[in-house]
């Protein structure tokens, strides 16, 4: 529903929506993966983004190049996710939904305040390669490199994840666990390994997303993970909580709505963009309460 006057603008908005959507999709997938297996809505997911971004900040301070920063951001977010599972969620295995939600909330606050106490409550700049600020020109069209790279990388990560989930035994075990954890355990898939792997993957996806979130905003700050993870949560609800494909789809739908509103709303209404976007989300959920691809709720 992009009402762009020129074709060029339409292409630009489309690539904007794709790049934003693929970031949301990565985060939403991480949330959905942990939720579908553990029944935990991980509020601390955004802090994985923060951990990855701060890793890049520290390495930048040490003078390391971007080629080192990016992979280590992904790795550090993965490690942080595994630690989070070990320290905060494994002791609570089998606890109620609320208990898990509360503990993830507490974990999130602890990590945020660690960065606040140890680094600084203020924003710190992290300059990224100048390539990210340049644009590619195809005749009349010009598109930002950042958007193109974001889209390609995130779609690539989604593809790798899909192959992993469909082709490897570990992946199939996780896919099965996301549909019915109890039965999967009965089939001899070790629970702890599946859960640790889910956290590791969700962390690495958050790490990939973090690189581009950082590239877009240019600064790190202790609370930077909150808004992205809120969006990802909305995305996974749109797609249907617990459905992995749904989460990815929801990310793109939410980004499409936001970018579409950015392009069509008059300037005076722009500050309320999020309110309008959420209104549309509410309408979607009225029509399909279980989300776009959600399974109809069943008694567990």
């Amino acid at each position, binding site marked *: 529903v992009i009402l762009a006057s020129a074709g060029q603008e339409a292409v630009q908005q489309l690539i904007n929506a794709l790049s934003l959507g693929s970031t949301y999709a990565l985060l939403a997938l991480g949330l959905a993966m942990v939720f579908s297996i553990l029944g935990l809505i991980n509020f601390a997911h955004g802090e994985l983004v923060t951990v990855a971004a701060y890793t890049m900040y520290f390495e930048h301070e040490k003078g390391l190049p971007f080629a080192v920063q990016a992979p280590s951001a992904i790795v550090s977010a993965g490690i942080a996710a595994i630690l989070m599972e070990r320290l905060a969620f494994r002791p609570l295995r089998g606890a109620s939904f609320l208990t898990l939600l509360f503990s993830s909330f507490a974990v999130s*606050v602890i990590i945020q*305040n660690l960065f*606040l106490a140890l680094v600084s409550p203020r924003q710190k700049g992290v300059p990224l390669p100048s390539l990210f600020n340049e644009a590619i020109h195809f005749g009349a069209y010009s598109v930002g490199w950042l958007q193109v790279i974001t889209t390609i990388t995130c779609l690539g990560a989604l593809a790798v994840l899909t192959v992993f989930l469909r082709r490897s035994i570990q992946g199939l075990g996780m896919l099965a666990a996301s549909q019915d954890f109890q039965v999967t355990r009965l089939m001899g898939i070790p629970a702890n390994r599946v859960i640790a792997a889910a956290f590791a993957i969700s962390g690495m996806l958050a790490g990939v997303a973090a690189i581009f979130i950082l590239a877009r905003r240019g600064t790190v700050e202790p609370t930077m993970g909150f808004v992205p993870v809120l969006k990802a949560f909305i995305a996974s609800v749109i797609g249907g909580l617990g459905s992995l494909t749904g989460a990815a789809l929801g990310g793109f739908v939410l980004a499409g709505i936001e970018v579409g509103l950015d392009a069509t709303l008059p300037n005076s209404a722009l500050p309320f963009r999020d309110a309008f976007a959420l209104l549309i989300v509410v309408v979607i959920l009225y029509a399909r309460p279980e989300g776009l691809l959600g399974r109809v709720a069943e008694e567990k």
Partner: protein
Amino acid sequence: VRRALAKAGRTAVLFGVPLVVVAFLGSAFASPANERVIVNFFITLVLALSIQTFTGNSGIVSFGHVGFMGVGGGLWAEYNVAFGPRQFFFSLTFALLAVLVVGGLGSVSGAVIGAVIVTAASEIMRRLEDRTGIGGLANMAVALMILLVLYRRPDGLLGRVELDDLLGRRLGRWRPGTRHEAH
């Protein structure tokens, strides 16, 4: 119903009297810092109780509820003079969450004890923050407290027990009806 009312009344007396005493002591030794602590204490307490009531009746723990706060909101507005739509969200939700987890969702005594512990702990840490210049200690301490309580006592420190039940049991038949309810 009558029994429930009687119980609520007892609880109100048991906690109301000390709370009023605390409030008067607070205003007697008024300094801006003490005043802030006491006001915060009452705001979180009132909100925690209202969330408990809401949860008890609907089974939903709703922090969106914070947006509709009545008495607590009134206190807040009175104290802070100016306020905007975003003010309540994060810090207040977090403090409330801590109160409800630490004290337990199940009882009025839980909310009171939770509010006391959380307010005291975060206030001590806040002083420490001022002295050392390191920010974030108060929130970190409260968050650690939440985690510890969740590990050790998932129902909160008090669970479903009311303090007056405990006292009543100690004092034997001093209050008829108490024993009756203890089952």
